[in-house]
């Protein structure tokens, strides 16, 4: 016997789905509209606005900056985050318990507060160049993802394996690279991707740290919108969305999305 879902339940599920997917449909539609202002449903179809994105040099420039930041910030964050996650997993008993929560703080503190305090302390306070401040800010922003996701992998790692390598004549530092890292690689890749996307889409930290001549794509998007209310904005959004979806698709294909929700 098959149980049938209550019609109201189905209706509720459909509404939720529409609520989630609706804005995405609207933005794609708006990006294709053959008008000089944002509108939905699209009137006429054109790819002109996508072309426009690559013709406006500010978009091109900030897009490169955004990718540089996402790669650099995540790499920097991993360089700090992996050893931290390792220490917390390896010496779980010896280390104070609150330490794990410290690494989630950048998520818990409202990003706008984080951005503001970074501007005060790093960008203005110590005269670090804009790109450097942005790099630090983004590294801090994505650190929780790196520590948490890599940490989840390390927590299920049997450290006897590392000891086995040491007993077979492998120095500890070398055992970390030859035995530990290869076995938490899925966690590192997943953490990297999650952090990459977070950095790429960030507004609230970047808005405080960008300055003359240096901006990121989402910030440029805001600036553009204040002057021109044309479908270029929608096109940039669609492009960002596609990058995100593509990256997620790679994760799903290689590791499975369930990995991120662990």
């Amino acid at each position: 016997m098959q149980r049938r879902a209550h019609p109201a339940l189905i209706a509720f599920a459909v509404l939720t789905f529409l609520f989630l997917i609706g804005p995405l449909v609207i933005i794609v539609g708006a990006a294709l509209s053959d008008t000089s202002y944002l509108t939905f449903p699209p009137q006429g179809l054109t790819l002109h606005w996508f072309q426009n994105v690559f013709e406006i040099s500010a978009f091109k420039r900030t897009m490169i900056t955004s990718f540089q930041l996402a790669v650099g910030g995540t790499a920097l964050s991993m360089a700090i985050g992996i050893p931290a996650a390792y220490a917390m997993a390896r010496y779980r008993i010896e280390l104070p318990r609150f330490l794990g929560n410290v690494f989630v703080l950048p998520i818990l503190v409202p990003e706008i507060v984080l951005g503001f305090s970074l501007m005060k302390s790093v960008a203005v306070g110590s005269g670090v160049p804009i790109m450097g401040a942005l790099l630090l800010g983004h590294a801090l922003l994505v650190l929780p993802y790196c520590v948490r996701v890599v940490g989840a992998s390390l927590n299920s790692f049997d450290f006897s394996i590392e000891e086995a390598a040491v007993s077979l004549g492998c120095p500890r530092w070398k055992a970390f690279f030859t035995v530990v890292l290869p076995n938490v690689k899925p966690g590192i890749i997943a953490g990297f991707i999650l952090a990459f996307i977070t950095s790429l889409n960030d507004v609230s930290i970047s808005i405080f740290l960008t300055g003359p001549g240096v901006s990121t794509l989402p910030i440029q998007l805001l600036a553009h919108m204040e002057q021109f209310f044309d479908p270029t904005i929608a096109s940039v959004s669609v492009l960002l969305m596609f990058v995100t979806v593509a990256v997620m698709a790679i994760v799903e294909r290689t590791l499975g999305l369930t990995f991120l929700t662990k």
Partner: protein
Amino acid sequence: MTVSLDLSDVTAHYGNTKVLEDLSLHVAEGELVSLLGASGCGKTTTLRLVAGFLEPTSGRIKLGETDLTRLPAHSRDIGLVFQTYALFPHLSVRDNVAFGLKQRGEGRAARQRKADEMIERVGLAGFADRFQANLSGGQRQRVALARALVIEPRLLMFDEPLSNLDAKLRVDMRVEIRRLQQINGTTALYVTHDQEEAFSISDRVAIMNAGRIMQLDTPEVLYSRPANLFVADFVGFENVIPMRAVAEAGDAVRAEIEGGGMIDLPKQHYTVPAQEFVLASRPEGLLVDTADRTDGLPAKLGLRTYLGRAYQYQCDTTAGPVKANGPLGTPREEGEIVTLIPQPEQCCLLPREAK
């Protein structure tokens, strides 16, 4: 070249907790010694100290002429087999086994050849290209064994290597471990909580409790001549009957049983260790007989259970409850008054200890 392992006066702490106290242990060349005890007795701590994963607070550890005490773990030349197998999941069986050879700078061809030989020797020919995920528990432990043996270490150590295997496999694997250990005559230290396992394959066994070795001897001596009450209880001397020597009675010592009653202990079988002592026995060490004998303990029979080779009785004596066995031919009833005759080969006299 076989060497001996020597621990002298080793003390170790976890934080402020003392887990080993002045432990000394000598494992002779080519000998297999087991550390046996309940969890928390310090046996794994001892192994980890020798492996170099922990540092002792004081004392020395020597392997042959090499002082291991402050030597980094990776320079100790010890083959280690873990309870969780600890295979490298990202490497094939062959690369797992060859790992130690690679660390020793052996060429690719040589280490592949040696690895394949060892894989064959542990009975895994044809499995060299598999990964851990495609091996059973027993096969994994064989790989772990091969990996530890192939580097021809000066010392082999086993940390509960069979605990994750099922009962039948455990028996096969321990024979295998003993066989492989004896091929090269490698000195070995074996940690387990399983008495049968330790006794069956060890040259000598150290029974441990609360960070000390209670007795270190051959399984045969431990089994029949425990040196103290802890070891006696550990090897199954369940009955502990306190008594006190009072007189000589010909070629026997007459003793007064606590709570009343006398017993004559023949000198040819028993040496009384002190005036106040206990008689410890296994259930089969007390044989139920008729009430008219003077060389036994008076007792009243309680519940009878059938063991296949004998009956076992819960008995009440003046010194408290004990378990005794009786022959199958003559089942006795609850409430009968009998004498329990100690069987010298299943009993021993030990000094009393402050509880």
